[in-house]
């Protein structure tokens, strides 16, 4: 089966611009998660979708971040406007059942200059 796909793999944008990250989960996985790793820090949870609904968005840093999952399939994470501290690697993961563990994508490395 195809894995979790994220694109772009890298993005370099200027402060104040908008960037949209996309995640295609494994087909049939209702659970979709976004995580972020800022350089030198631990990986942090951003949010969790169950199908198209946001189950938990407690980790979203602020209202410059908007996540959507239309139709319960792929998800997008938009950062608008981007700030320097948004730089990091954004990981997406999906799962059918939590006890089976997540499958992660390769991540999107975002650099804001």
């Amino acid at each position: 089966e195809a894995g979790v796909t994220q694109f772009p793999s890298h993005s370099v944008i200027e402060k104040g611009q908008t960037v949209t990250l996309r995640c295609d989960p494994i087909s049939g996985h209702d659970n979709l998660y976004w995580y972020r790793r800022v350089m030198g820090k631990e990986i942090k949870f951003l949010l969790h979708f169950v199908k198209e609904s946001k189950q938990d968005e407690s980790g979203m840093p602020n209202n410059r971040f908007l996540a959507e999952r239309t139709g319960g399939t792929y998800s997008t994470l938009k950062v608008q406007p981007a700030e320097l501290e948004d730089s990091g690697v954004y990981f997406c993961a999906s799962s059918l059942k939590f006890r089976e563990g997540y499958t992660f994508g390769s991540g999107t490395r975002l650099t804001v200059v």
Partner: protein
Amino acid sequence: AQSVTQPDIHITVSEGASLELRCNYSYGATPYLFWYVQSPGQGLQLLLKYFSGDTLVQGIKGFEAEFKRSQSSFNLRKPSVHWSDAAEYFCAVAPSAGNNRKLIWGLGTSLAVNP
């Protein structure tokens, strides 16, 4: 506060040597426990997980981990390291009750393998 500590930021071992990566957690109740690995250019891959039962857990790629409740630890081990094991290793925990499914992560341990 809930936290995961991986005391070793970087470890270097020789190929064929044994390996132990440490992980300690601070949590209200025994959580679910995970080890993930990230090889260069790859995503995070699940090595093994502990939910309940036998405290010695076998994973992929010849890794195992032992849960020790009294020490709040979940150390990862491998008897003989291969050059392909060079990667970054992450310990993570999640609550074992309720609907909260977010992982709390350690900082990671970067493993280098000398030939």
